[in-house]
């Protein structure tokens, strides 16, 4: 077992001029001054090359951790995983397993277990032989093969299926066998590429729990690639969020949820999504307010931003539906009419229209029922009210 490290990894599809220039120009060192290199790369890249699929990606996954790489399609997450596995060449940078650089190692020598979303089991072989396949290919003695398969089978809950053929298995069972096949080699690193996305909701939840428990038991360094934020949140010790080939944030589920570094992360994590709206800042002489321009709704700016934003500024406001609160007793709360009230059983959702096709949504477990048009008084939970730069999208910090 070992940790996994990405060190300034780039991936560009197709051999390009940029590559050749880099190869020729040894004075450019990647690790020392990223900024200069970036500028050079960009200057050359803009005229000749496709953008980077993975763009200066650095990440450290300590031994035994479960790391989720999360992002929309095309963000470079699967490419990153495939570079670890050796299925893609690394354009620039290093990938380390333990303290060994694996860039030029053959995939089979990297000591990796791999499970893709489509299970790719060998149809003529039964479950036992499928799990044993790679061990036998390595000429492991048969009694050792048997010992390993039989030891892992109950953990993966496939012990009753060992004689079955893949065709007779459900999707969830196939994926268990698939993961067992990856784990039986006792790899340094386990790579999971969207392992749950073919499964229906119920099975997905069950297998999620099983994967977490197995990880807790054997503590194999695991990297999960997914576009499903719920999956990443529920499984990972830490989540790396990617967009356009670049790492946006790396943190625990609670960190990325509570303290998103930019608008992209804020909007990507959480369901229902965070309310994000472009607002103005106005001042009535005593207090500062967020102003939703289309409807003239004003909500007080938390004190922690007193030195961050001023009247006349425009920012992107971010507040989660659970942090918009109804408070009839606060004299400074904004009185607003309800546009939509939804009773979803466990919770109620209330939406306020703040612009065309733009709503401020709040979620409450309060049993009270409302009708459209009813007026409520709103405040934001101040510690959980975020603001972002309207141009860069970066979070603007207040004084805590």
């Amino acid at each position, binding site marked *: 077992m070992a940790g996994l490290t990405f060190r300034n990894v780039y991936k560009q599809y197709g051999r390009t001029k940029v590559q050749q220039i880099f190869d020729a120009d040894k004075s450019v060192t990647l690790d020392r001054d990223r900024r200069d290199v970036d500028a050079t790369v960009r200057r050359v890249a803009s005229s000749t090359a496709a953008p980077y699929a993975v763009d200066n990606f650095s990440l450290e996954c300590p031994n035994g951790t479960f790391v989720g790489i999360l992002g929309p399609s095309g963000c470079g997450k699967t490419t990153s995983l495939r570079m670890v596995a050796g299925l893609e060449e690394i354009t620039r940078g290093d990938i380390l397993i333990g303290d060994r650089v694996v860039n030029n190692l053959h995939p089979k020598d990297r000591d990796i277990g791999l499970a893709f979303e489509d299970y790719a089991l060998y149809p003529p072989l039964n479950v036992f032989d499928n799990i044993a396949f790679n061990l036998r290919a390595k000429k492991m003695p048969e009694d050792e093969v048997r010992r390993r398969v039989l030891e892992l089978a109950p953990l993966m809950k496939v012990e009753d299926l060992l004689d079955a053929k893949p065709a007779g298995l459900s999707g969830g069972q196939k994926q268990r066998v698939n993961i067992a096949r990856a784990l039986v080699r006792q790899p340094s690193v386990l790579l999971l590429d969207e392992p749950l996305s073919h499964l229906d909701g119920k099975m997905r939840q069950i297998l999620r*729990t099983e994967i*977490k428990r197995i990880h807790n038991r054997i503590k194999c360094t695991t990297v999960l690639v997914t576009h499903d934020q719920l999956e990443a949140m529920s499984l990972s010790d830490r989540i790396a969020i990617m967009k356009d080939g670049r790492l946006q944030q790396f943190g625990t589920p*609670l960190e990325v949820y509570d303290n998103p570094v930019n608008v992209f992360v804020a*909007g990507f994590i959480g369901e229902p*999504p965070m309310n994000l709206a472009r607002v103005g800042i106005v001042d009535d002489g005593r207090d500062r307010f967020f102003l939703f321009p289309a409807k003239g709704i004003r909500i007080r700016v938390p004190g922690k931003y007193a030195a961050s934003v001023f009247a006349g500024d425009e920012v992107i406001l971010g507040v989660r539906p659970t942090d918009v609160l109804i408070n009839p007793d606060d004299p400074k709360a904004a009185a607003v009419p309800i546009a939509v009230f939804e009773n979803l059983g466990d919770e109620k959702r209330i939406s306020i229209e703040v612009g065309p096709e733009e709503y401020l*949504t709040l979620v409450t477990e309060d049993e009270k029922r409302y009708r459209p048009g009813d007026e409520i008084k709103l405040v934001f939970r101040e510690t959980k009210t975020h603001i972002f730069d309207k141009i860069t999208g970066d979070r603007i910090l207040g004084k805590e």
Partner: protein
Amino acid sequence: MAQITLEKISKSFGSVKALDAVDLEVKDKEFFVLFGPAGAGKTTILKTIAGVEFPDSGLVRIGDRIVNLIDPALRNVSMVFENYALYPHMKVYDNIASPMRSPLHRKSEAEIAREVARVSDLMGISQLMERLPSQLSNGQRQRTALGRCLVRRPNVFLMDEPLAHLDAKLRHLMRTELKAMQTAFDTTTIYVTHDYSEALSLGDRIAILNRGKFEQIGTGDEVYYAPVNEFVARLVGEPEINIVDAELQDVAGECRVGIRAGASIVHYPLPDDIGGKLHASGVGRRIRMGIRGVNIAYKFEKAEGYLPGSVYNLEPIGNKSILTIKTDENLFQTIASNDLSVELDTPVWMYPDPKNMLLFDAADGRFLGRHHQAQLTGRA
């Protein structure tokens, strides 16, 4: 403007019974949701009403007219497709006008202009008439597609999972949009979905369909607070309701639910209204106890009336965490705060609140009752 009645509709595809003698009455101007898992028969009902699928037996009425033999084009129903299927090369105006330019329903251009203006006002898209669909936001596309359906003043509006193909974020916004426009339809609407939150949010009433038969037809409150059986209970809510074996017992004249925990049984006295009713139906029998995750409390120390277990899994999902507790016999999914941090397999004690227990018959899964049933379902 019409009510819709299905009488004993059956339909088979080969040996598969898609619909099995279903009866249904949708009231005039009602927003009615057909809800169920894939393959339940939801879309077949929709197609039967539209007239693109013929029932093997049974009657379809729109208003008081039997329409079994009426051509789909003459039924005056309007179907909204997944993806909304706007004509990409036509401006919004022409997209909305298109039904009135079909050979069958051709109207004069003056009348078309009047109707398009009416509908686009209703949908709040009057300022977009000159745009192409590619120049519209998702919400504007939805409004245009709905406008195109409303322009014919249909008797019935049929919607087949219009939001199913959207990603989670957009679906949330579009559902809010749809709900905001709902009152503007003013038309009998039948909406098919497999998403319980859409069903609860949008439906005046919800019909839950399973293998070609209705399990329950009722309001959102009825299916949530008083599901007629375990099947319905499991369909509504996320995470899924916990349903476990239990026993009805008499302790000093009081009706209690006994739940096994290893060697012992923990007892939960039922509130009088439901306890009295079940007591009369006989104690000592086996039942099934259903409890939603939000109605389970937990502690990391032993407490009276709490079931002993251990932490089986803890999944942070944003604003909360799902804590799965394993007792000797069962797994329970409960809701915990998102900053809870605990090692797997730590001992934990849990309390299913008897006021929120849903009780089912052990033999057939039929709903036996709950506390405050009449108040919660609005049938007091």
